[in-house]
């Protein structure tokens, strides 16, 4: 845990420094939000799962019946693209549960309004933008996991892989799906984790071998897990929540957290900078890190921004933090284009691996 | 020709599409009540000219005056004409009566008056009782009569006909020729008809305008066009014509040498120096077969090359040689059936013919001389 926190602080301090725009003065703060608005209408952009939203949102509606919340939900890529494309006249008031890396891009373009939601003090420091007031505040993390179809592996008489190293064994040839890092944040997460864990040279050598075993690269992060769930492939490299959810839905999926560690990402909230900022938006942000909702987050995420008394959900490692690799967000962000270019050169355009 | 004020005047009309000249400096007067034909091969500009007269096509320069009014810049809807197309252009979803009444209804006339006018027009074109039919239920000839009735419905000053008969069967076409002419006379409307069929023009027209490559080549009454074609093109296009190549001879005024024969022509106004190449033109029906030709001038000694039975007459293809390597000359004549008894029509048989001097027309050979 200590190592994790140290890494995060180092990383986020750096990111924070680059993210804070000179001249973007913070005029709002916790003081404003104390007199929270209880009516109005807001538009919320989110990449949280539909079933999560239908689980979380009633809580808000109960508490603030006069605030109408319009949800625009889509995959991380679509929501981020929409948010950024609407830069000149933002439609969203609030971003809720979107990848922190996406929010960093939005912040670099000056699209986020600094805001310190009520209850910020309860948030672990590594889960928020270090700037005061913060430009974004995290709520949970998610990380890479394998969705392993036990029925398919059993039929083929193969053992269940437990590590990244297992995946490059020849017996898994043609049985694995993973998201293309150029299309999917989840894909990039895994690739960057491998490169950071193994170092550049060894990392690429590993990816070369993984490529040999790959049945298909997908354009969406959840697709490999769904393919595994439907038996289209035996192993899908995806992320934790997806693996657990499909297992719970009765699919023959075993969530596997690789022994070497998982790439990870923070999901966070932010206030969108626009001409008139609705007070209801701040109410929503206050609520979105409140104690009640945090307990709900904790029911599906093993690591939440504020510590709760909710036990770690079933199926996760006992120490989820230990599962996370040391992740240098800043380097990864700046290296992203190079990594993707190299990835494209190595694996795109070759005939399809079988 | 009467010198009363023309009903329609075209002055120096010019039209080009891109760099292609469609009409080159067309000037033309049309007399009131006249039935004028625009005759020429396809692509000669006759349809373009008709469309310009109607205002359906813009012109590049020139003037059009109709009934004393300059209509050059007026759109079709403000001019005064009725038009009939080759395709009839009948509205297929309207009945015969509705087609004819189409323009009348728009004039906001009382219903009874429209109905009466429709009946009047139907009887004019001989289609009484067919008013409830749809165009597809009529024969081609009937459809064209409906189109005529519709074009005449508003009593226009000018009737334009764009190849109205060419989509019809030969027999129907022949019948309609007479009907259209009679109708035009009866109504007294000035009419312009476009055709590529010289027979149609010769039988129906008061005057014919022969066009070629965007220009007017000759204007005249049918007989005049037939008997005195102004150019080899007209001669060839209107009716059948034999062309005999020759050279102006020094033997006397108006003597042309063709092969071994000397032909005297009556009309000699070209003042060409001896040795100039020329083309003689003569209609097949003007050439007479002469067994007793001793002492006659303008005789060609030909031989039979082919014989075709045409019903009332035989068509003979004849030939005579020319000096050296020059191509032999071919000519066609028509021999009445009753005259064949006196002649040997075997291929290769000699066939002396007489070409009267007054039937020969002389043209300069195109491209030769100035």
């Amino acid at each position: 845990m200590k190592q994790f926190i140290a890494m995060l602080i180092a990383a986020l301090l750096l990111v924070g420094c680059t993210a804070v725009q000179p001249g973007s003065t913070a005029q709002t703060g916790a003081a404003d939000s104390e007199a929270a608005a209880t009516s109005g209408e807001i538009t919320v952009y989110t990449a949280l799962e539909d079933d999560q939203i239908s689980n979380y949102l009633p809580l808000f509606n109960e508490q603030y019946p006069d605030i109408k919340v319009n949800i625009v939900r889509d995959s991380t890529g679509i929501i981020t693209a929409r948010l950024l494309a609407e830069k000149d006249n933002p439609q969203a008031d609030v971003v809720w549960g979107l990848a922190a890396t996406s929010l960093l891009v939005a912040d670099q373009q000056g699209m986020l309004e600094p805001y310190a939601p009520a209850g910020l003090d309860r948030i672990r420091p590594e889960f928020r933008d270090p700037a005061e007031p913060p430009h974004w505040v995290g709520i949970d993390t998610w990380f890479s996991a394998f969705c392993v179809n036990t029925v398919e592996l059993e039929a083929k008489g193969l053992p269940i892989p437990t590590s990244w190293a297992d995946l490059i064994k020849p017996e898994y040839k043609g049985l694995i799906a993973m998201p293309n890092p150029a299309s999917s944040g989840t894909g990039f997460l895994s690739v960057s984790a491998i490169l950071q864990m193994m170092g550049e040279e060894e990392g690429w050598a590993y990816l070369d071998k993984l490529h040999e075993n790959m049945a298909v690269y997908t354009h969406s992060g959840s697709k490999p897990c769904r393919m595994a769930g439907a038996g289209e492939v035996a192993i899908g490299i995806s992320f934790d929540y997806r693996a657990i959810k499909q297992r719970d839905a009765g699919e023959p999926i075993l969530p596997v957290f690789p022994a070497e560690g998982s790439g990870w990402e923070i999901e966070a909230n932010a206030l969108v900078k626009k001409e008139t900022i609705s007070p209801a938006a701040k109410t929503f942000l206050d609520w979105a890190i409140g104690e009640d909702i945090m307990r709900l987050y904790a029911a599906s995420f093993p690591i939440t921004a504020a510590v709760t008394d909710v036990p770690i959900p079933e199926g996760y490692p006992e120490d989820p933090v230990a599962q996370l690799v040391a992740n240098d967000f800043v380097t990864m962000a700046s290296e992203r284009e190079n990594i993707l270019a190299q990835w494209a050169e190595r694996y795109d355009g070759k005939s399809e691996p079988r | 020709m009467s010198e009363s004020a023309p009903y329609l005047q075209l002055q120096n009309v010019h039209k080009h599409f891109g760099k292609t000249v469609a009409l080159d400096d067309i000037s033309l007067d049309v007399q009131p009540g006249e039935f004028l034909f625009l005759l020429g091969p396809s692509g000669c500009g006759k349809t373009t000219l008709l469309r310009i007269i109607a205002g359906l096509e813009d012109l590049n320069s020139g003037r059009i005056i109709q009934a004393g009014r300059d209509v050059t810049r007026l759109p079709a809807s403000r001019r005064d004409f009725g038009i009939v197309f080759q395709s009839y252009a009948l509205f297929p979803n309207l009945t015969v009566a509705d087609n004819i009444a189409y323009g009348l209804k728009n004039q906001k006339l009382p219903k009874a008056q429209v109905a009466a006018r429709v009946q009047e027009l139907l009887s004019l074109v001989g289609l009484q009782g067919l008013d409830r039919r749809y165009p597809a239920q009529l024969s081609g000839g009937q459809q064209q009569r409906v189109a005529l009735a519709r074009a005449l419905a508003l009593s226009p000053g000018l009737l334009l006909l764009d190849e109205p008969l060419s989509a019809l069967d030969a027999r129907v076409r022949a019948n309609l020729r007479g009907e259209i002419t009679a109708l035009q006379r009866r109504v007294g409307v000035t009419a312009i008809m476009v055709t590529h069929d010289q027979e149609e023009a010769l039988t129906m027209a008061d005057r014919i305008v022969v066009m070629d490559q965007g220009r007017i080549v000759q204007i005249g009454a049918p007989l005049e066009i037939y008997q005195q074609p102004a150019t080899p093109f007209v001669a060839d296009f209107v009716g059948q014509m034999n062309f005999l190549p020759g050279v102006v001879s020094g033997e006397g005024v108006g003597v042309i040498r063709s092969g071994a024969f000397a032909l005297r022509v009556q009309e000699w106004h070209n003042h060409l120096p001896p040795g100039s190449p020329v083309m003689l033109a003569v209609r097949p029906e003007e050439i007479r077969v002469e067994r007793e030709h001793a002492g006659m001038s303008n005789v060609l000694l030909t031989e039979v090359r082919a014989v075709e039975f045409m019903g009332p007459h035989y068509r003979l293809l004849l030939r005579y040689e020319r000096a050296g390597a020059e191509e032999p000359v071919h000519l066609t004549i028509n021999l009445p059936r009753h005259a064949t008894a006196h002649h040997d029509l075997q291929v290769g048989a000699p066939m002396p013919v007489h070409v009267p001097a007054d039937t020969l027309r002389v043209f300069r050979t195109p491209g030769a001389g100035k």
Partner: protein
Amino acid sequence: MTTQVTDERIITLPAATVRPIVTGEDWLRRSLLLLVTGFLLVGVLLPLVPLVVRSLSDQNGQFVGLENYVRYFTSPGLASSFVNSMTVATLTTLLAVGLAFGYAWSITRTCMPAKGFFRAVALLPLFVPPLAIAIGLVYLFGNKGLVTTGFFGFFEQTLGAPLAFNINLYGMNGIILGELLYCFPQAFLILTVAAALADARLYEASMALNASALRTFWTVTLPGMRYGLISAIFVCFTLAFTDFGVPKVVGGNFNVLATDIYKQVIGQQNFVMGATISIVLLAPTVIAFVIDRIAQRRQVAVLTARSVPLRPRPHRVIDTLALLYCALIAAAILIVVGTVVYASLVDVWPYKLNLTLRHFDFRNVGGGGWGAYINSLWMSFYTAVFGVIIIFTGAYIIEKSRTWPGLRHFAYFLSMVSVALPGLVIGLAYIFFFNPKSWTILGVAVPNPFAFLYGTMAILVLSNIVHFYTVSFMTGTTALKQIDGEFESVSASLRVPFYRTFARVTLPLSLPAVAEIAMYLFVNAMVTVSAVIFLYSPQIKLASVAIVNMDDAGDTAAAAAMSVLIIAACLVVRMVYTGIVHQLNRRTQAWRLP
């Protein structure tokens, strides 16, 4: 009087053109042309401007000239993406046009039975959302697919033979199969119209000359359908070249240009590069457009006033072969669509195959459920109604008026170019164009007069009309071309204003085409995702987007269920269309049949 004309011919081209007086009617025509051109400008051309600007700028909005293009053309994956796109588009076009040609020929030129049924089945894929087609293909040909596993080994147990085929769905095979299903109905639509326009006299002549069937085909059938064939090739090639829905789902690692845009925009939020590739993607279409135009210029009217409609004669062998051929293709289509229906009813694919209706209860899945379905119905209705008015008016004024030729050609070009815009590009371009409250033009802020459209139903309808403009426009133009071009001249001579002739003659004669355009717009609006996914507002969720969301969330069965609802709505509309056309034909039989 004899006029002699000199031989010398002086070609002078007078510069001065006699300008006809402009009448009120002309102004009405011009206004209509202006309105249509304005619509196309706002809907097609202007939204591309911000896209072009972005392709010439860096991420911070600084002008960098052609740097992005240079970078794109030197990037490692490009060559293969380009080759892949060309391969997929070419093969799809060959297959779709080839198969559709045979199908259309069988339906129009033979006496095989059940033509109405086969016609309906051919259009069925149009009613299926792209993602549902992908679901159907995966359930059939995926690694666990019914075909791949021989119905889960069922054939092996009962017949003793494995009867299982693995077509290696993920990759080029899957893309071509998906695009084929997508392009086939479009090619079929165009080719049926072309095949119906035959002059029986040419075939009689060919028969009289003792030409063999093959020779007749090459010398009469093909040339007569040339325009339709070229149009079908143009449409199929462009659709297959620009579509990203199919490659995204079953393309695997097989990269095409359209998924490159997806990666840049959605994967990496790199609008600059996305814009650059979008512009590159336009190029082949513009080339195809030019070829289409040249081919069309040389097109002579197939039907003249004397044409005799071709009535097929019964021929046992040919009719049987045609029936077999159509039955095979129809079966293939029905199997894919049937699989989608099956997918909506299966409890847990592929492990619990009992049937249930529970997936039609959308309360526990995202995307907006039945509300989204109702929204989609309204949106499609508006798209059909406003679309048909705008598109048919546009086709009419471009095809049948002589006013302002330059502007008419321009409007024609815009009408044709919209097919080249992938939905994703339309969606993004619309955000950039319609969302800002003001545009900065040369450093000056100009208020955006269209900003009010953003986030409304109107922008969804607009994007749909533009997205499906070209094929509808071609349908309208083809119908108008069949109407005698002299009707307008006759009306003018009778001093009847053009709009009266439009209302009394042109429109009634074109009603089948008008109904077809409306149907086409409706069904496409129902199923489309790519553009509207960027434009729908939280108040107006859509069924087709819900399918994507449900599938994304793993609720494949619910996604299939929503697809089935969409197919059902499209089938109803299709039946209404058939009913209307039937009524029209009955009422107007009198003038249609000689």
